[in-house]
């Protein structure tokens, strides 16, 4: 049976366009040292390192974990590298948790990062695949038609995306690590920003960030002795489906629905809106909030935008189910780390360590990541209570 495991330390870098002051190793180490300090530990307390990042072409370094061994104090220890596209930060956390939940390891370090300024993500995402038509679209171009289909089906008002863009930036203004700091942002400013991929405007898209996120995950015995509150991992799930197949439901993908059901069943969540106190969900483009509200069962199909428009997902408006109190991917997007940031921020909420963007009394929270053509999913539920 799976052993209990908990997040006992979190470390994040400041997210920004270019971290010119550090190498890749320096940036990753900064997050790792932060997690060790948070957990009151040193390098010798770590049994293994599990590292994740999105495609190697984002930095132009093949299997960078080989080079990062020394910076992560991993000489003589196990090192594993996960890559599951945009969901990788979440998948990495789940694989890292399995090192402890299996009973094979007592305490491990997991790190995810992206230093997008080393390369050009748009290029790395759109280079031609052998034997495949060249889309040359980047992520926004890929998702825009799917969003338009969502708008058509749901009759959502044109400004639901604008509302999400404002809400997440107001959240991010409470998080000193967030890349975009836009405390004065308004609906009008978002609406007036240039249209990139109809219906996505410039301010409805995530930035391109450098940054790293790290967590220490420990078994029950060690977590109980940890100096700060642990975030107990109550459920973790992954699902994949192909990018394309005849009849694929792209607006509300089956893999996301199945993954959510799986993680809720493990964590005893019957009604996610009621049973969770907050959620950190991968929303790189504004409209994915209402779409994922439906996919994850927070709202009925076609009604996700109503939750968004009502302010239910807003921390600043006192909503009952704040989504992305940290500011989310719309404020900071070091791609390979973005999923792990969601997972780590969920942990910080239930540990009571989220600072100015803390949701009062949060006990149970969800972390979510997706990747590829909205086909790879990873999710976990963490809680201040063991069971």
């Amino acid at each position: 049976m799976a052993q209990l495991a908990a997040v006992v330390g979190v470390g994040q870098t400041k997210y920004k366009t270019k971290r010119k002051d550090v190498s890749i190793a320096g940036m990753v180490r900064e997050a790792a040292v932060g997690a060790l300090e948070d957990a009151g530990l040193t390098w010798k307390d770590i049994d293994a390192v599990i590292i994740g990042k999105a495609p190697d072409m984002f930095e132009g370094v093949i299997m960078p974990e080989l080079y990062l061994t020394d910076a992560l104090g991993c000489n003589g220890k196990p090192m594993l590298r996960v890559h599951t596209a945009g969901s990788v930060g979440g998948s990495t956390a789940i694989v890292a948790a399995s090192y402890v939940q299996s009973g094979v390891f007592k305490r491990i370090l997991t790190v995810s990062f992206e230093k997008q300024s080393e390369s050009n993500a748009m290029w790395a995402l759109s280079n031609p695949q052998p034997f495949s038509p060249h889309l040359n679209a980047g992520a926004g171009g890929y998702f825009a038609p799917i969003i338009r289909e969502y708008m058509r089906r749901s009759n959502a008002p044109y400004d639901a995306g604008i509302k999400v863009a404002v809400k997440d930036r107001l959240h991010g203004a409470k998080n000193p690590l967030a890349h975009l700091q836009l405390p004065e942002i308004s609906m009008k400013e978002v609406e007036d920003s240039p249209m990139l991929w109809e219906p996505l405007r410039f301010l409805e898209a995530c930035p391109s960030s450098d940054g790293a996120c790290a967590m220490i995950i420990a078994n029950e015995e060690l977590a109980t002795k940890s100096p700060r509150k642990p975030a107990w991992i109550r459920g973790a799930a992954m699902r994949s489906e192909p990018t394309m197949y005849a009849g694929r439901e792209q607006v509300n993908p089956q893999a996301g629905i199945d993954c959510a059901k799986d993680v809720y069943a493990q964590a005893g969540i019957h009604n996610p809106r009621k049973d969770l106190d907050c959620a950190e969900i991968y929303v790189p483009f504004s409209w994915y909030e209402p779409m994922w509200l439906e996919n994850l069962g927070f709202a009925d199909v076609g009604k996700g935008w109503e939750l968004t428009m009502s302010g239910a997902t807003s921390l600043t408006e006192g909503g009952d189910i704040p989504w992305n109190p940290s500011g989310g991917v719309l404020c900071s997007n070091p791609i390979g780390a973005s999923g792990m940031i969601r997972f780590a921020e969920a942990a910080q909420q239930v540990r009571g360590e989220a600072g100015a963007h803390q949701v009062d009394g949060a006990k149970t929270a969800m972390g979510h990541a997706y990747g590829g053509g909205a086909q790879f999913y990873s999710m976990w539920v963490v809680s201040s209570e063991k069971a």
Partner: protein
Amino acid sequence: MRDVAIVAFAQSNCQRDAGAQNEVELIMPVLSEVFKQTGIKSAQDVDFTCSGSCDYQQGAAFAFVAGVDALGAVPPIKESHVEMDAAWALYEAWLKIQMGHAESALLYGFGKSSPGELPIVLSQQLDPYYLAPLWVDTIAFAAMQARTMLDSGEITEADMAEVVARSRNNALANPHAQLKGDQTAADLLKEATYVSPLRLHDCCPISDGACAMIICTIEKAEEWGKPYAIIKGIDHRIETHHIGSRDLSRSVSTEIAGEAVGVKNGKVDVAELYAPFSHQEIILKKALGLGDDTVINPSGGVLAGNVMMASGLSRIGEVAMRIIRGEATRGVAHATSGPCLQQNLVTVLEAK
């Protein structure tokens, strides 16, 4: 740790250039073969799937996404991927089984190295600030390692040629091998050096291909009614990336992993070692404490064919199949990654 069974393994032929075959076409035949061996129909019939591949081999981001197309993941499946040799995908799945979240798992690794110049491509695996800009390729690094061993008198060029001659001879019985032949060490030593002190035959070939495996709990293997080999232990370790900080004549990470899985706790009938260069087999044999009573690389090893990202899992599969066929009762399989054996995985397999 609970025992885990290997019930099926398949590998493609190692080919220098798979031509217009894409990932799906490379992967599907080996998937079909392991499904057939296990008596199941699809990836939905196992609890977890994990693969290993590297984008830079074929030269495009997300090589593994194409791999998912080979799985027919409709309805959706529980699936993960390592940007590593698939031997580490096996490790991830082994953990899932240990924690009770899966009873069975499908693993596959694939690589299409032919589109690029692999040794040069792999130079971009080095420290991006201090080493990669020098474009030191994998062969140059291996040559340096061989040179230190020759200079210290630990090995001779004849020892290296013996490794190659045995590999090529063993490969005669391996239908998947790319390089095979009955040359003697003396014949091989007559060839000119390629990157001194390495001759071309001291270096593994470049191959395209794939392999797949199915593992499960012992209970599940009994339920399926299939013969199996048992994973008694599996461990992986990494060491410093800085070549100058390492004793290149040793593989410390292999030593630690070998100790952790108890290689020395019994007679080792057979060992498959992932040694891309002839002298590295000698290093690995020493690191694992293998004696002359162990048959090493009966398949011919990767000197006879090296599908990067699949070769490590294939080493494990080769040993498992020999145990299942009753040719051995206890064996060791090894996988490696990185320059000069930087990262290593060791597993001990036994008959039931």
